């Protein structure tokens, strides 16, 4: 579906944010973030708690409007206009605990107007069994995060916004997920991963974006930069 040659060409920025400010009352979650991001790259977004990583992702997903500043995704100023093109995953699973994985995905597929067959394919792609009847609430954390990723991948989005996808996940599942993400990046997707476990992305991510106190303080190709407190 994606042109493999597009994978590593220098594309123009598909996401650009300019002077992004987000305040919740007196708390400034983002204090003027300006950056541009290119297609077919994997970005690891790192930083301490309260750095603004989740807020940035939620603004990109269109869940939260910025207080000031501009967001341009795929040429549009309002993320909701291009909501078909991205998949969002957060620390809560965004799934119904009482339904099986397949039932969950069938429902979300309906929201996007997709075929049922796609659901089975996607579940298999993340390494789970589409026929599993067990309700998602009884999954292990690793399985749940993988099913949540499957939901985010359902509409074959160009952009993936993943907030702490590896949290509380066992090492083996986490490494499988990273491999899967790398394959998708090579296939042309742009992936943003907010995580505390930067080492998992070492060698796979194209760039690390370091945030602190609501600003981007550095962008590096590897993990050698460790900001001092």
């Amino acid at each position: 579906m994606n042109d493999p040659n597009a994978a590593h060409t220098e594309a123009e920025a598909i996401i650009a944010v300019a002077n992004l400010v987000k305040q919740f009352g007196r708390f400034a979650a983002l204090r003027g973030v300006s950056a541009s991001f290119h297609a077919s790259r994997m970005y690891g977004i790192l930083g301490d708690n309260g750095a603004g990583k989740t807020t940035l992702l939620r603004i990109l997903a269109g869940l939260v409007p910025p207080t000031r500043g501009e967001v341009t995704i795929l040429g549009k100023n309002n993320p909701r206009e291009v909501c078909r093109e991205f998949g969002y995953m957060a620390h809560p699973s965004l799934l119904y605990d009482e339904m099986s994985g397949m039932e969950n995905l069938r429902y979300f597929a309906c929201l996007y107007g997709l075929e049922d067959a796609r659901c089975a394919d996607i579940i298999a792609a993340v390494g789970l069994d589409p026929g599993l009847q067990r309700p998602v609430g009884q999954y292990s954390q690793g399985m749940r995060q993988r099913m949540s990723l499957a939901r985010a991948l359902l509409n074959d989005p160009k952009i993936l916004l993943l907030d702490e996808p590896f949290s509380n996940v066992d090492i083996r599942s986490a490494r499988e997920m990273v491999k899967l993400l790398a394959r998708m990046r090579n296939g042309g997707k742009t992936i943003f991963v907010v995580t505390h476990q930067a080492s998992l992305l070492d060698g796979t991510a194209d760039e690390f974006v370091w945030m602190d106190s609501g600003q981007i303080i550095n962008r590096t190709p590897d993990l050698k930069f460790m900001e001092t407190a």
Partner: protein
Amino acid sequence: MKKAFPILGLLTAGLLSYALYEGLVVAPKEQTMGEVQRIFYYHVPSAWTAFLLFFINFLASVQYLVRRDPKTDKIANWVVITIGVLTCVAPYAIPSLVPAGARASSIATTGVALVGLYFLIKKFFSEQETDMLALTTAEVGVVFCTVVLVTGPLWARPVWGIWWTWDVRLTSTLVLWLIYVSYLVLRRFSSSGQTPVLAAALAVFGALDVPLVYFSIWFFRTQHPQPVIGGGGSIDPRMLHVLLINWLAFLCFAFLVCWSRYRLERMKREVEETQALEALLEPRSALR
């Protein structure tokens, strides 16, 4: 602007005193009710003022909702103009449409007031300011409405022997009061990001409700007749004169209070913005 406030204050104080004098001394004593009837000069203007303030709140809320998107803004403009034209033309062209108890001229006046106020608000208030206007008029409106609901029973008890009756006007006023108190509670209990939008939506719902309340109680009363308080029918021209003076005084007073409250709200928001800007600029390392 700053000088105007104390001048207006003095003017209003003068007007209120004059109106009080007119109401208590000059106005003729009512034949059947006696001196108690004078509370009428307090009760009715409060009601009219409250309704006007709630009407402005409704228009400001609508504006807040439609002005977020230029398309809906334009559509709303045309809808308002159409309603204005219809209310001016229809009651005269098709007299049978006018419901019993209303007059064609009052419908037309309401229509003109609607259009006039809508575009006046649009001209003088920015988007954020319409939200402040909505908050102000809701608060002051609730105060005046409370006055109506308290003076009503105070008047009714000595004259008709009952504290309350479910007549159209009193009950509609009570429901309006309930709706706007819930509006104020919503504003207090929602977090500051979405308060304007949610409150505006509730104000629109309240406005949709009012005619339905009126009709339902009107019909209820035809089925279950109860004593009428407040007296209908014609009014002695001298009493009307005193009534209008009192209304003018009340309007000035309401305007003054609203203006103060509006300024207070604006200052409060400016302080919050400044604090937010400061929080934005200062380094956060101290908090860690």
